[in-house]
């Protein structure tokens, strides 16, 4: 089914998307919110600029955006896939707990804030370009990969990993990360670490037609919290 977002407005558009059994193509999209919220079993292709909270609570469906997205894409997403053929706004993958998000270009501030994992639920975000500050803020689980394919500089802003206490962040850069918070350790990713993310990177390279040799042509740093309970000293022993 093909739907004009601009004509329908966000409420009707989302009602129509929910009521359709098959795949959906949305065009003329100018900031309509909540597209694909909670969707579990279809592919939604969006041409334009989807509004905030695209694919929130997504539960297995696939969303493909031909354009840039706005803020809070994949908010509390549980399963499925979001592919952005452009840039993403702030708070991408906010509190995400499963599924995968690919962004071709840049992402804004607070990418992957409050992301978490549990048993086999392990969310993954891969950014082709750069991110703003507070990357992986309060990260509790899952994996964020920043590739910086469009820059020779370090591809993340300031205050990466503030409050991070789980999960891992990979940053591809010829310059090492600086000014990390005390509870985060960075080092060149080992072979085992790369092995764990290889399949996701392979898929990313196929989706956007980027050669994997290019991706692996620079060092990849891995950031993890140092110790099981990095905030232990903040609490009383009892």
């Amino acid at each position, binding site marked *: 089914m093909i739907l004009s977002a601009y004509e329908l407005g966000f409420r009707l558009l989302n009602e129509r998307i929910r009521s359709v059994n098959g795949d959906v193509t949305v065009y003329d999209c100018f*900031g309509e919110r909540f597209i694909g919220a909670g969707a579990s079993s279809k592919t939604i292709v969006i041409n334009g600029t989807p509004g905030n909270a695209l694919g929130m609570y997504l539960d297995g469906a696939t969303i493909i955006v031909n354009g840039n997205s706005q803020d809070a894409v994949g908010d509390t997403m549980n399963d499925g896939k979001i592919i952005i053929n452009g840039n993403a*706004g702030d708070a991408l993958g906010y509190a995400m707990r499963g599924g995968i998000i690919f962004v071709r270009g840049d992402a*804004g501030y607070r990418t992957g804030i409050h992301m978490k994992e549990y048993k086999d639920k392990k969310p993954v975000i891969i950014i082709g370009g750069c991110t703003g500050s507070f990357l992986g803020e309060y990260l509790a689980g899952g994996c964020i990969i920043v590739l910086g394919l469009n820059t020779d500089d370090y591809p993340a802003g300031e205050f990466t990993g503030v409050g991070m206490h789980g999960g891992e962040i990979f940053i591809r850069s010829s310059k090492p990360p600086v000014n990390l918070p005390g509870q985060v350790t960075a080092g060149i990713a080992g072979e085992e670490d790369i092995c764990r993310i290889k399949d996701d990177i392979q898929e990313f390279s196929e989706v956007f037609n980027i050669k994997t040799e290019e991706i692996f042509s620079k060092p990849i740093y891995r950031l993890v919290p140092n110790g099981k309970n990095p905030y232990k000293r903040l609490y009383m022993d009892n």
Partner: protein
Amino acid sequence: MFRNISGCAISGVFSKSGRRFSGKLIIDSIAAMHERSNGLGGGFAAYGIYPEYKDCYAFHIFYDNESAKEECEKFLASHFDIITLSKIPVRKIPQITDEPMIWRYFMVPLPSKLADSQLDEREFVVRCVFRINSTIDGAYVFSSGKNMGVFKAVGFPEDVGRFYRLEEYEGYCFTAHGRYPTNTPGWWGGAHPFALLDYSVVHNGEISSYDANRRNIEMYGYQCMLKTDTEVITYMIDYLHRKKHLTLKEICTVFAAPFWSTIEIMPYPEREELEYLRNAFESFLITGPFSIIVGFDKGIMALNDRLKLRSMVVGEKDDMVYIASEEAAIRVIENEPDRVWSPKGGEAVIITFEEGTE
């Protein structure tokens, strides 16, 4: 269940070549963010709309009643040469109700009165604005610049635009605001933009430092009486730019100063300058989430708080610059911009006329 999904919306459009265009464009832009407002305030600032009176101060005034108007006009006549005055033309629509009397005056200060005051002309005008707003009950000057005007009301911004027939005005710069008041009343005077002389501010956010900023600016003779935090930003810009002669870039550094930890690792002399600005203008630091668009006679400025707790996107196409809370509000009026980007938190975006523009 009613779930509030709002948050204010701001938008701005500026032609670097000074080309004038209809106010319809900014209405279309702000309307795309309808969901960010709740109908309790909308407004516009428009620059370059009064070329036939470009040397006059254009006062836009709300009156609650006839006696306020009489008293105010008496005051105006004794301080200004009133070139012309009229009701601001509006379109009666069901979405906008309970409007006050809305009048417009094109004026120049009376030479004798100005000379007696021993003030420069702009300071004279500012003092008159505060005098009316603080002493004449039921009169409120909400616009006082040259060749520009503010149009605001209680309602959704696109309705406010239609109410004021904004599409009939042509200007080189427009800013807009859709309001979702959080902890202050939604009333006509409290709608954005807030303006003084040709400075106007639209603001999305909530200033945690409001009271500290207010106490500080009141020491310099500015009275905050509009029950909302954005007012204080306008006065701080007027004070720092017009009186202290700080550049707009320096003002952005004062408002959204980098953290000390960031300043510490900067090279000299940049570090020295930042330390000076943070120390000298400490009480002008704005904390809490904000994105603002400032209009002034020569251009447009945009700024995010240093943590970037509000979204803001900038777009460019030929001589046009677009700034909005959401990229969609730019795309809806220019779907193929040459460039679209999100400025960093605390990064000043200042755009002025191209060289040679009159």
